[in-house]
């Protein structure tokens, strides 16, 4: 078990293509870090640089107290779980688990004990003498995790380990990974493109875009205060509504409608405003923004209404029983608004208004 220190790491491929730029990340011992982002954002490249499968072009990676830039993958004291399991097809499950230990000259008794324990933990004891091809996807993934666990490494590296499983299995395996990591307390880096997986697993989320870190924070931090429009649109389902708007003093103009901000305005002029679907309320008063419903998605517990405010697409989340009419009026608590720079997409921090003003804001909600 060890801390991992990634400092100003970059990756430039042969031919000058830049995949990762200037990543700084301090991972504490025992922490579960999730790297999340769309495909091509450099998250796997970063993970592979930590693993040693990809040369580090710039910066340093430290595992524990040791700079590992020039260290062979086998000597970095890490274990990796791959998306397609990467089990050795010619070996039985037991041999798969033993392979890494045998190559490290672990005593036989120790190997047997560790394999037995990992197999019990992952409930694969009855499959130990089978070949991987005789196992289902979920079982293979367990074996792949077993192969990592028996090593007792300083860190686990997960490269989209659940992407090849069906939706139901993914949810249960997700829980299992979390449980195992808690129990073993091993530092973990987990790569995924699935924001839900990222939210549920992470102690800290690292959102990557175009090879750069967009935001680092706890899942709720990232959800509630996204640092950019990219993070806002990537984290959360349904995605945050991002609309063009204009700040005029203490009032916000979204298309034809105006919202009174009660001192929550961070700046003035054109901005991008983020509204979470679940923060929008349907109101009966004529004050609200006019909203024309285009279609409704039924999720059972929720109803998602997609429509237009002015000429901008907006989605609202309503409770399962809520009534939906073709045109409704919406309002939102000004404190729940997210402001982003219209040009750069970076978050504009709201200077919190005095409590007295905030109290006035309450009735609006």
């Amino acid at each position: 078990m060890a801390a991992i220190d990634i400092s100003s790491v970059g990756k430039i491929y042969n031919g000058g293509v830049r995949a990762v730029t200037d990543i700084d990340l301090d991972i504490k011992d025992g922490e579960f870090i999730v790297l999340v982002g769309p495909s091509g954002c450099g998250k796997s490249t970063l993970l592979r640089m930590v693993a040693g499968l990809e040369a580090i072009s710039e910066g340093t990676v430290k595992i524990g107290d040791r700079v590992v830039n020039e260290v062979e993958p086998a000597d970095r004291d890490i274990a990796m779980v791959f998306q397609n399991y990467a089990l050795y097809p010619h070996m039985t499950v037991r041999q798969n688990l033993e392979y890494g230990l045998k190559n490290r000259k672990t005593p036989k008794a120790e190997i047997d004990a560790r394999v037995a324990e990992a197999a019990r933990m992952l409930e694969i004891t009855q499959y130990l003498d089978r070949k991987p091809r005789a196992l289902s996807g979920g079982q293979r993934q367990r074996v792949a995790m077993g192969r990592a666990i028996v090593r007792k490494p300083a860190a686990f590296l997960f490269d989209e380990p659940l992407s090849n499983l069906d939706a139901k299995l993914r949810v249960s395996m997700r829980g299992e990974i979390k449980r195992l990591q808690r129990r073993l307390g091993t530092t973990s880096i987990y790569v995924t493109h699935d924001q839900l997986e990222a939210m549920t697993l992470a102690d800290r989320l690292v959102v990557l875009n175009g090879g750069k870190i967009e935001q680092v924070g706890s899942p709720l931090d990232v959800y509630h205060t996204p640092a950019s429009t990219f993070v806002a649109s990537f984290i959360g389902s349904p995605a945050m509504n991002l609309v063009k708007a204009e700040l005029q003093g203490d009032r916000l103009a979204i298309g034809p409608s105006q919202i009174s901000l009660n001192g929550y305005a961070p700046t003035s002029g054109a901005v991008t405003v983020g509204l979470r679907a679940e923060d929008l309320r349907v109101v009966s008063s004529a004050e609200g923004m006019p909203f024309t419903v285009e279609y409704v998605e039924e999720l059972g517990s929720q109803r998602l209404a997609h429509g237009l405010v002015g000429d901008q697409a907006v989605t609202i989340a309503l409770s399962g029983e809520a009534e939906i009419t073709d045109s409704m009026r919406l309002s939102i608590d000004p404190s729940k608004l997210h402001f982003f720079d219209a040009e750069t997409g970076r978050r504009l921090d709201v200077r919190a208004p005095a409590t007295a003003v905030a109290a006035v804001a309450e009735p609006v909600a």
Partner: protein
Amino acid sequence: MAYTTSQPQPGGFLSRLGFGGKARSRKTAVAAEEMKRVQFTSPVLPYLFLFPQLAVIFIFFYWPSVQAVSSSFYLEDPFGFGSTFVGLSNYTDVIFSSEYQSIALFTAVFTVLVTFLSLSLGLLLAVKADRVIRGASTYKTLLIAIYAIAAPVSGLIGMMIFDQHVGPFVKMMSYFGWHMQVGLNYYDTAFAMTVVAVWKQIPYNFIFFLSGLQNVPVSVREAAMIDCRSGMRRFWTVILPLLAPTAFFLLTINVTYALFDTFGIIDVMVKDKPANNPVTLVYKVYADGFRGNDIGGSSAQSVILMIVVFVLTIFQFRFIERRVHYN
């Protein structure tokens, strides 16, 4: 598959070549079952469709085999004036002839050497070429190109290299005190023959090993890199077992090659040369039958060869294929 041989092969054999193995052949079986359900309007029609293939097999395989077996029991007049039934004496003559025994021994040694060397060198080159990143395709093409050379031509090139007067290899060896006399000295000829035969077969093995290597999933290699420090050990414990289906296929092909397809090379090397030169059993069948006009003896030899190949094939599929992992 542009690089298949002209050898007759058991059905579906190539398809197993590391491209899905058993699962694939199972799929073929399912496909075959579906094929059976095709309804023909007349019961004769399917046989009509099969006829050309059956005719080819019969005319070019079964008929000559039967001919060979039957004529092996006769002493044929060299000028074609009839034949006398001699029972098994053609066989006993052949088997107890010391010349035949020494040729059989040479054939065995030659086959083992050619198979082993061309497989291992092909594998070595493939492993090295697999790691090349820059200029990979040029490099690979250069290695493969030799395969396009026809057997007699490569035999001829080999002859030139080992020529008594102008051969560069002979000249080079003379600096080391080895005065090669290919075509005169038994061992020198054997050496040259083996080198040329191996050289000719390496590109073929190279192509298949390379494609086999590229079928080893990258992530499995990477998992092995994390599990095992030594590249050599990784190769023996992970890569090579995954190449086993390819290697097994190539073993069969290479044994056949060394036994039969080296004919052209041997012919170019020993034709018009004094008699004391190494030849393989196949070449002896030809020489006795067509040069010596001993049709009976030659037939007996070819029947023996047929039995040897039959036993070898059974051995390969029974005992070696079982140990081969098909993913």
